[in-house]
C-alpha cells in the first residue's frame, strides 16, 4: 500500500519528456512484445498447469503420487537459470547445434533450428517455470471441490471430460485466474530472462529509462503505467465474475478414476513432459556444471550462503503468509470498501519489478531511519545507525511487499471455496473471528496455506533484485551468487549455487506437498474406487 502510494507520488512529480520520447520510439514495440509474451505465457501455464492439476487429483495412474508433488519442482528453478541452461544447450554455440554441424558437416545457415533466444523461447521457458503456480493453486481447489457437484453434471449426461470442462474448470476459475495472474505478474516483472533472450518488453523499457537515460522518474512513470494495466486486467476479471460464487455445499471428496492402459500411459506422458523440460533437463545441466566445480562443495562460505538463503526463505514465507492470512480473512469478515481496496492494492506488488519495489522501499525506510536517528540523537545522544533500511528488516519488508500477493491470492482462492455458513456456524457458537480462523478456516484451508508457504518460500529463495539492493553488508544468498556468476557469463560457476537453490527449495516442497497429499488421503480414506468402463 504505502509503496504504491509513494510510487504514485513520484509518478506525478517528474516531467514527461522522457516518456514522450520513448512513446515515439520504442514503447510500441515493447508493448507489443509484452502483450505477446503475456498471451503466450497465459496459454502455456494454463495448459500445463490445469491439465496436470486435474490429472493428478482426479485420476489414478502409475506415478501419479510422485508426480503430484514433483510437478512443483520447476518452480524451484529461477527462470533466468532455466533460460541459461537451455541457451547453453540449444544456442548455435551449444552442444546440440555443434553436434549437428559436426555430424552433417553443415555450417551455420545451412539448416533451420529454432532460435531459442526469441520471443518463442521466452514464452516456452517462462511457461515451463511458472506453470506450477497454476498447478498448485488449481490443484488445491480441485481437492476441495465437492463430488456431488460433479455427479450432478454426469446425471445431466456429461462425460467425465465434459464435466471437467463445464463444471470443474469454471468452478476452479478463481484459482486458475489467480495462478495465471501470478505467472503473468512474474512475467511482467521479469527482467533477467527476457533480457537474456533479447526480448524487449515493457520492463526492459523501465530499466532502459533508469539505467540508460539515468531517469529514475521516467522509469517510475512507466512502472506506474504497468501498474495501471495490471489493475485494469484484475478489475476486468473481477467484473466478469460478478456475483457468481464458487463454494459448494457438502464438500464430499470425489472418487478418483482409475486409469488403465492407453489412457494411463497418456496421462503419465502429459504429466512427465513439463517436469522433464521444466526441471529435470535444466537440473541435469546444472548438475553437470556443478561437477566441474566440485571444489565449492567443501567451501564453508558456500554452506553459509545456503543457510542464509534457507533461513531467510523460511522466515519470510511464514511472515508473508501470516500477513496475507490476516488481510484475506479481514476482507472476508469485514467486506467494507476500505479493506477491499487495501487488499487489492496489497496484491499488486508482484507485478512490479523487484528492483523498483526495492527502490521505493528504500525511499520510505531511509526516511523513517532518518527520523529515528534524529530522535535518538536528540534524546539519547546516540546514533543507532540505519535500523530499518540497513538490516534484514528491509529485506523482509521488501519480500512482504513483493510476495504478499502470491500468498494473498492463493489464500483468497482457497477461502472462496469455503461456504460462508461455516463462518456463521462457528460464530454462533461463541467464537470470535480469530478463533474461527484457527478452528475452522485454517484446517479447511490447509492445502491453500501450504501452497502459499511453498510459493512464497521458493520465490524468496529465488528473489534477486530486491535482495541485491536491500541486503546488509556481507550478506549473500545463493540467488545473488548464482546471478553474479551468470551475469559475468560464468555459467559453470553459477551451477553449484543454482543447484543448491533448487535443492534447498526441494526440501520444503517435498515436506509440504506430502502434508497436502495426506490431507487429501484422509478425506478419501473411506472411499472405494469406481472402475471406469467406457
Amino acid at each position, binding site marked *: 500500500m504505502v509503496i504504491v502510494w509513494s510510487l504514485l507520488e513520484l509518478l506525478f512529480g517528474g516531467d514527461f519528456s522522457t516518456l514522450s520520447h520513448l512513446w515515439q520510439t520504442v514503447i510500441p514495440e515493447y508493448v507489443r512484445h509484452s502483450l505477446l509474451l503475456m498471451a503466450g505465457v497465459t496459454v502455456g501455464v494454463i495448459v500445463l498447469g490445469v491439465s496436470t492439476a486435474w490429472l493428478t487429483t482426479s485420476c489414478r495412474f502409475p506415478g501419479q503420487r510422485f508426480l503430484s508433488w514433483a510437478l512443483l519442482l520447476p518452480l524451484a528453478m529461477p527462470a533466468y537459470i532455466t533460460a541459461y541452461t537451455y541457451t547453453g544447450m540449444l544456442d548455435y554455440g551449444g552442444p546440440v547445434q555443434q553436434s549437428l554441424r559436426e555430424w552433417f558437416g553443415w555450417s551455420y545457415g545451412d539448416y533451420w533450428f529454432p532460435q531459442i533466444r526469441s520471443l518463442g523461447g521466452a514464452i516456452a521457458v517462462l511457461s515451463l517455470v511458472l506453470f506450477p503456480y497454476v498447478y498448485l493453486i488449481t490443484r488445491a481447489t480441485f481437492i476441495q471441490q465437492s463430488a456431488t457437484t460433479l455427479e450432478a453434471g454426469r446425471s445431466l449426461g456429461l462425460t467425465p471430460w465434459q464435466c471437467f470442462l463445464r463444471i470443474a474448470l469454471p468452478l476452479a476459475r478463481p484459482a486458475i485466474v489467480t495462478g495465471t495472474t501470478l505467472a503473468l505478474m512474474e512475467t511482467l516483472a521479469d527482467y533477467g530472462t527476457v533480457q537474456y533472450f533479447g526480448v524487449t518488453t515493457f520492463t526492459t523499457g523501465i530499466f532502459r529509462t533508469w539505467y540508460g537515460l539515468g531517469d529514475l522518474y521516467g522509469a517510475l512513470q512507466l512502472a506506474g503505467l504497468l501498474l495501471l494495466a495490471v489493475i485494469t486486467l484484475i478489475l476486468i476479471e473481477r467484473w466478469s465474475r460478478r456475483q457468481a460464487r464458487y463454494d459448494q455445499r*457438502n464438500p464430499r471428496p470425489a472418487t478418483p478414476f482409475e486409469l488403465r492402459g492407453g489412457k494411463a500411459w497418456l496421462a503419465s506422458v502429459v504429466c512427465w513432459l513439463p517436469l522433464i523440460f521444466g526441471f529435470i533437463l535444466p537440473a541435469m545441466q546444472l548438475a553437470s556444471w556443478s561437477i566441474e566445480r566440485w571444489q565449492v562443495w567443501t567451501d564453508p562460505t558456500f554452506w553459509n550462503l545456503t543457510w542464509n538463503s534457507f533461513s531467510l526463505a523460511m522466515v519470510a514465507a511464514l511472515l508473508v503468509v501470516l500477513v496475507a492470512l490476516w488481510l484475506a480473512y479481514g476482507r472476508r469478515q469485514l467486506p467494507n470498501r476500505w479493506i477491499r481496496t487495501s487488499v487489492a492494492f496489497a496484491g499488486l506488488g508482484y507485478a512490479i519489478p523487484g528492483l523498483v519495489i526495492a527502490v521505493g522501499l528504500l525511499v520510505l525506510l531511509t526516511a523513517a531511519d532518518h527520523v529515528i536517528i534524529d530522535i535518538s540523537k536528540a534524546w539519547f545522544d546516540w546514533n543507532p545507525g540505519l535500523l530499518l533500511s540497513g538490516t534484514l528488516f528491509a529485506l523482509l519488508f521488501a519480500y512482504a511487499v513483493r510476495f504478499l500477493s502470491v500468498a494473498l491470492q492463493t489464500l483468497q482462492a482457497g477461502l472462496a471455496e469455503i461456504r460462508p455458513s*461455516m463462518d456463521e*456456524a462457528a*460464530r454462533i457458537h461463541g*467464537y470470535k473471528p480469530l478463533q474461527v480462523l484457527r478452528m475452522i478456516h485454517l484446517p479447511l484451508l490447509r492445502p491453500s496455506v501450504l501452497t502459499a508457504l511453498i510459493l512464497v518460500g521458493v520465490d524468496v529463495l529465488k528473489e534477486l533484485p530486491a535482495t541485491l539492493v536491500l541486503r546488509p553488508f556481507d550478506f549473500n544468498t545463493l540467488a545473488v551468487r548464482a546471478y553474479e556468476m551468470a551475469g559475468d557469463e560464468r555459467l559453470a560457476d553459477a551451477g553449484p549455487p543454482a543447484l543448491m537453490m533448487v535443492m534447498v527449495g526441494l526440501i520444503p516442497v517435498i515436506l509440504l506437498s506430502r502434508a497436502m497429499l495426506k490431507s487429501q488421503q484422509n*478425506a478419501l480414506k*473411506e472411499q472405494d474406487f469406481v472402475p471406469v468402463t467406457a
Partner: protein
Amino acid sequence: MHSRSKTLSLLQLDHLHIQLGKQAIVRGVSMQLNAGDIGCLLGPSGCGKTTLLRAIAGFQSVTAGAIALAGQQVSSPTATQAPEQRGIGMVFQDFALFPHLTVAENISFGMRHASHQEKQLRVDELLNRIGLPGYQKRYPHELSGGQQQRVALARALAPRPRLLLLDEPFSSLDAELRERLAIEVRELLKKEQITALLVTHDQQEAFAMADQAGVMYQGELLQWDTPYQLYHQPRHQMVADFIGHGVLLQGTVNASGRMASPLGMLEHPSLSAVADGTPVNFLVRPDDLVPDPQSRLRGTIKARGFRGAHNLYTVELTSGVEVLTLSPSHEQLRVGDELGLRPDFDHLVVFAADHCELPGFSNQAPAFPDGLPEAQSA
C-alpha cells in the same frame, strides 16, 4: 404492564425491515417471544424466514427497526452486536457442519468452557436422543442427509444457548422420526429452559411444538398467535389459506345477520356486526363439511387424494362451486360419485371481500380450486 412484558420477553422484534440488495425482504415485522417459550414461523418458500433468523442471530444487518434480546437492543440500523456475543444457537437450513471435524467434535464445538468429560457426556446424551448412538467418530460426509441434519441439531443444542433458532431442523427426516424428535426437542428445551424460534414447513410440527406461531408472507408477519387461533381464527385471508386445507367461498350478509352462500343460509354471531348486503369471503375447511347422504347440499366428486387414514375429496357442488371434504379411506367413494354434504361450522371465519386480494393465484392444481400462492417474483 410495560415493565412486566419487558422482564418476560426474551426476544423482541420491533418493526424490523431488512433489505438484500435493492429488495425489501423483511417488512415491518414485530413480535415477541417470552423466555422459555417456543415460537414457530410458517410461511411459503422464499418469504423471508431464513433472512429473519439470520438477522436475529446477527449475520444480517437490519435496514430499520430493532431487535432486542432480554430487553437489550442488539440490532438496529446503526449498531449490530457480534453474533458470538449474543448467546444464540442456530440450526442452519443447510446444516453447515464442519467437514473436517468428527460428529463428536462438531457437537461439542460450541461447549467452549466445558471440560473434556462434560463434553463427552453431553455428546453421548445428545447422540442418544437423536438416535445416533455410536456415531461419535464419523465425519459428516459419512452420514446420510437426515443424519447430518440431526447432528446439526445436536450441535446447536449442546451449549444450551439462551435462544435457539431452528431453520427447518427436521426437513430431512421421516415422519416418524420427525414427530418423535419434535417432542423430544420440545421436552429438552423446556427442561433446559431454552427459548426457541423454529422455522418449519410442517404445520403439524408447528402445532405440536409451538407456544406461539406466526405466518409470514412476502416479508410480512401476518399473524402471531397461538397455533389453535391461527388455524381456527385466522385474522388474514392469506393465513387461512396457508394453514391447513380449505377453500374461500363468497357470500352476502343480509339484514338479519345471516349470510347467503353456496352452502345455503349460514348463521354466525360475528355476522351481526356486518352491514346488510356486504359481500364477504368465508373459509370452508374440509372438516367443516361432513358427508351426509340425507343432506340437500349435493355435489359430485371431482378428485380424490389418498392420505392414509382419510381420503381428501374435491367436490363440485351443484352450484358449480368446488369444496373439499374428508372421509375415512375405507369408504371407497369414486371420482364421479354423487354425495351429500352437511355444513358443520364451529367457527365461521369471514373476511371482507375486498380485503387482501390474493395475488396471482395459479389455477393449475385441481385439488385446490382457490389456487396456491406463487413465490413473490423478483
